[in-house]
């Protein structure tokens, strides 16, 4: 399955592109190669509706002459002329205006073996997977429920090399199981998703059982008055909501007065200040024994995230991932810098986190419920969007089950609600921290605890189940 992606092949493509770019007149250059073989099966209403494999290798080449620079990408196959591709890139770049914020590629960094590749996971075949989904659907059928979801396996590689001699490689397997269970009358619904690099580490049966139980418990939700509530967020809900807060942690936006951190907290210097609850500690981790992740990444700025995605350059790719606190006991300790902004400020540049860890407590979700006199348990949030970037005010809706808690007990399921709230306020209002689970955020893996948050504002309810 992976014959296109041998290490030798990757090195050949990288070396060839760098040599061709140099020959064409590039003063500096960097090559990033991404390869992926992935399979994804989708099931709906207890039947398989899609099942397929994707396979691709993509090469990105950044070239510069003086301060003129640009990036070019292509899919890689024997049909693509790599020499012509590199020559085209260099031929164009010499006519570009200079970029006053140009920086040189980063130098060599140690290439750590991150043990993210699991051979048996990479060898799973379509028959095994279809049989597994068949067994899952039988179980769900037996309980007279309806299941929808996906199962993904992937083998990926990423390599980076540049004209300063940097060369780093990363290989990983990925496996993810998602399951939504709905009652046949569509009055109850729950969802869970689990992922790891190793198939054997996925608790598929346990996840399925839990999802079926909670789908049944969420049946026939009753109306509830919107307003401010104490909310217990499961690790999924906390990931959905709090990871968006990271978009405010950009150094340049802070320095130029375009950040919610400065406006919301009315300070020009939010770093080293007690902005959040002392219960909140957030770290970027490397070398986690149970959750190994890539050891290198790129310096990334969150500037412009609302519309254009994160800005990073290939020249910053290959930096060791930031290893240390982002928030420590509520005090802001780290902001994300682009390579240019780090160099301008004389700060050692680091790579964007690949594993974010919110420090966990020891309590279960049940414990958090027991200590709550009145509040809501939220399983997940959906369609979160910025409303006012000055305060990082967000809106979104609950999904997959909301439950009213009174006197330490769940009393009934309630209808889904729309919130309008800022995670910067909520990080201040964290009052209890539970146990962690691994979740995927859209740009990192996160170890996220269940969190209890006071004063969380819901504006309106919806009939959607």
């Amino acid at each position: 399955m992976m014959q296109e992606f041998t290490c030798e092949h990757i090195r050949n493509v990288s070396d060839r592109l760098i040599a061709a770019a140099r020959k064409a007149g590039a003063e500096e250059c960097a090559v990033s190669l991404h390869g992926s073989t992935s399979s994804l099966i989708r099931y709906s209403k207890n039947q398989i509706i899609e099942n397929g494999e994707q396979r691709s290798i993509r090469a990105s080449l950044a070239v510069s002459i003086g301060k003129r620079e640009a990036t070019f990408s292509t899919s890689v196959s024997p049909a693509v002329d790599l020499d012509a591709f590199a020559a085209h890139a260099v031929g164009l770049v010499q006519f570009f205006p200079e970029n006053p914020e140009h920086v040189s590629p980063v130098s060599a960094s140690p290439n750590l073996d991150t043990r993210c590749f699991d051979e048996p996971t990479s060898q799973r075949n379509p028959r095994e997977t279809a049989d597994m989904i068949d067994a899952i659907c039988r179980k769900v059928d037996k309980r007279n429920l309806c299941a929808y979801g996906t199962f993904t396996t992937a083998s990926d590689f990423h390599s980076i090399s540049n004209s300063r001699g940097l060369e780093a490689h990363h290989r990983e397997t990925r496996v993810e199981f998602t399951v939504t269970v709905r009652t046949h009358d569509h009055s109850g619904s729950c969802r869970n998703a689990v992922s790891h690099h190793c198939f054997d580490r996925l608790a598929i049966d346990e996840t399925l059982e839990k999802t079926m139980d909670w789908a049944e418990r969420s049946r026939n939700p009753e109306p509830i008055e919107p307003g401010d509530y104490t909310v217990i967020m499961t690790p999924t809900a906390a990931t959905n909501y709090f990871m968006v807060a990271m978009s405010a942690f950009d150094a340049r936006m802070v320095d130029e007065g375009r950040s919610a951190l400065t406006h919301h907290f009315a300070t020009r210097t939010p770093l080293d200040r007690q902005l959040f609850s002392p219960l909140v500690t957030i770290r970027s981790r490397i070398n986690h024994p149970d959750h190994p992740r890539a050891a290198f990444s790129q310096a990334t700025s969150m500037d412009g995230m609302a519309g254009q995605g994160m800005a990073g350059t290939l020249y910053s790719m290959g930096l060791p991932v930031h290893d240390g606190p982002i928030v420590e006991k509520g005090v802001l300790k780290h902001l994300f810098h682009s390579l240019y902004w780090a160099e301008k400020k004389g700060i050692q540049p680091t790579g964007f986190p690949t594993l974010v860890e919110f420090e966990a407590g020891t309590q279960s979700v049940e414990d958090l419920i027991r200590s709550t006199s009145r509040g809501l348990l939220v399983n997940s949030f959906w369609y979160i969007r910025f409303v006012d970037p000055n305060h990082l005010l967000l809106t979104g809706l609950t999904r997959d089950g909301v439950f009213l808690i009174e006197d330490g007990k769940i009393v009934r399921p309630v209808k889904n609600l729309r919130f309008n709230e800022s995670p910067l306020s909520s990080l201040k209002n964290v009052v209890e921290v539970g146990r962690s689970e691994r979740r995927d955020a859209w740009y990192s893996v996160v170890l996220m605890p269940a969190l209890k948050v006071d004063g969380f504002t819901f504006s309106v309810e919806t009939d959607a189940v």
Partner: protein
Amino acid sequence: MKAVQQEVGEIVQLGLIHEPAPYPTIRMNANYSAGLKEKNRIWSPWKEGFPVKDFMQCAIDRMKELGAEYGDVRFGDYTWQNIAVRNRILMNVSDDTSQGFGIRALYRGGWGFASTPRQDRESIIRTAERAVEIARASSIRGIREFVFADEPVHEVHWRTPYRIDPFKVPIAEKIALLMEICDRLLANSAIRQSTAYMNFGREHKLFLNSDGSFSDQLNMRVYAQYSATAVGPEGFESRTYYLPPINSGYEHIQESDLLDRTPSVADEAAAKLKAPDCPTEVTNLIILPSHTALTIHETIGHATELDRVMGWEADMAGTSFATIDKLNRLHYGSPLMNVIADRTQEHGRSSVPLDDDGVETGRWHLIRNGVLVGYSTTRSTAATIGEPRSRGCAYADSWKSWPILRMPNVSIEAGPNGSPSLDELIADTNNGILVDGLGSFSIDHQRINFQFGGDCAWRIRNGKREEILRRFTYQSHNPVFWNSVDAVCREDEWRQFGVVNCGKGQPMQVAQLTHGSAPMRLRDIAVGRARI
């Protein structure tokens, strides 16, 4: 055809009646006949010795040999270019190409798909074999009572009508335009940050299926957008201007008002920063086509996708409140609401003669005189509502993606003769808010409750447009919102805008759609409830 079981239980029970589908013939544009004269009638200058059609036929033949009931092969050749400028700094120029084959097989109600970037006969045949192997694996729990709708055999050669190939315009010219835009925005001293970008796509797709249908189609996409951010003691605020996302050539940029709009964009960003907050109240809205595009997309386009209605998307994108039992019954909007789905409109972002199921596309009503009368469908879903043919809404965003149901271009028709102009509509409004452009947007997973912002909102008082309001949002829900429409402007006010980043599917695919409308007024909508 290819049905595991020719039974449509749900439809029979509901006893729904459907009008025969008024499928138009493929409307070819002038470029089509020009294209016919071109050598090989294939739009890409591929290397000699690449018999792509033969390879595709080999894959089809192999799938048939292996017992597949249906199969299709797509070859995709994509080129994209992005150019972005921030504060007179060229931030990014990227050229991107991607080529490969995607092959789909159906075996006893089980689907299989496999893809490869390799372009040799052996790899393509091996990929076809893999697709069938996966389909056989799926068939252990294939789709029950599956009907794959019949479709006549077609042969289509087509490209987006355009005059100037954007990839032949020198990059320096494009950069100069973006720099000029930034310069003009920064000329306003309140503006601290300006960004401008454009992107182009040349998406060339060949398709062959086991029915014998073949298509050779090329979409040319052009887009440009810029923003100005004002910074002051009040915080920061941005104003954004974007070109209507249509499929066209570079003339769409040359003939646009991109430069002319810069002073007002900068002024309005500065004014937004100083503006009073939108109060919490219930008022009337006049929404402009640049804003309505996204509201149509989220509250009508997605809600009428039949795969969502059937529950197939419950794990991620969600389902829909507009269930099949409501067809021909639900008053989705006021009688002024006529909503058209159309994959044939000339420059539509999703316009193409043949879809990725090999189905001839068309134009039909989703909502007629306010009543829900139709859905977007594919060959895999059409039978659920008793329609014998698909509406042609299958789309895959890459050769390595499999086709899924995507909404077509969905538009609200202009008002009938005698409808007001925008000026007349404003003059007729004592109290309300005028909304332009795209702001915050969020909607629940069944498309009922939603909260939208705009890029700029003005108070309307006594029939006149007055001050800008900051932090404008409105909240409403289906079907109350569209039933609040009490006026739709006339035909000459109708404009196309659209959405270039619609995510759906697992793994996520991106679709691009054009959504047209005329300015319209809605009565008694809740605004300003989103508060810190």
